[in-house]
């Protein structure tokens, strides 16, 4: 078993996963990343778990605006529109 000097180690790979998923790795680093995955089942699992984490986080509910604030903004919108394009006086 020879170790090539610039092979990525598992400890390095876990810090590159987000850059990898975001497409931000240089082509050479991307190739080394993917070569490592071919031979390392544990890192495949780690990358998969980060994907699972992203997917599950996406299932959280988004925050909603408070109804009273929403009403106030819509009222401001109506006021703005009346001043914005003045129609015939009531």
């Amino acid at each position: 078993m020879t170790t090539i000097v610039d092979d990525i180690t598992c400890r390095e790979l876990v810090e590159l996963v987000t850059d990898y998923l975001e497409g931000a790795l240089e082509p050479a680093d991307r190739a080394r990343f993917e070569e490592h995955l071919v031979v390392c089942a544990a890192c495949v699992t780690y990358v998969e778990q980060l994907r699972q984490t992203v997917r599950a986080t996406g299932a959280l509910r988004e925050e909603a605006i408070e109804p009273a604030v929403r009403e106030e903004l819509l009222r401001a919108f109506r006021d703005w529109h009346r001043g914005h394009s003045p129609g015939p006086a009531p």
Partner: protein
Amino acid sequence: MTGEPFKQSADDAALVAGLRAGDERAFAELVDRYHASMLRIARLYVRSPAVAEEVVQETWLAVLQGIDRFEGRSSLKTWILRILANRARTRGAREGRSVPFSALVATDAAVGEATVEPGRFRARDDGEWPYHWAAPPRDWPEERLLAGETLQVIGGALEMLPESQREVIRLRDVEGWDADEVCEALQISPGNQRVLLHRARAKVRAALERYFMGEVAMAQ
């Protein structure tokens, strides 16, 4: 000035036309989509919740006042976020927040931080597999991934994050914003955005691992 001219989406075109025509539904749609996030973003720039509310309200008014001049050179969302960020930053400076958020992020991001416990790996001088997994991750029960209890674990993990990491992962992974939008809203570089996202995701992954594996250990 570089790259392809930005193409306005049909969604944006309809919203802009609606706003200009005074269609309340168009405005309500935008408010429902973005207001809650904008409020959280504003709070990263200004300390006081009341001032943050004001900044967001002023942003909406500025959006309305500027909509006739909106030329569609960016998405409507990006344009709104830029107005928000500018106003919030100005207000934060006036409020005298000692260190601007973006500077804080730059400092945080510059510090190296292992996102997986170093003890999970073999030593650097390991004869066989230096820096390879000593305690590799084990598969999770896929069918439990989206269960209510799992989502509670994730929610709890988000609460524990530093605010910059929490906001980035919320915008990216909960709300599905893209990287450019997050950079625009928080006025941070693409590289720092990735660092914050990476740390946040890794911590949530670790929390899920503790949760799933803790259960496995108890069941045995």
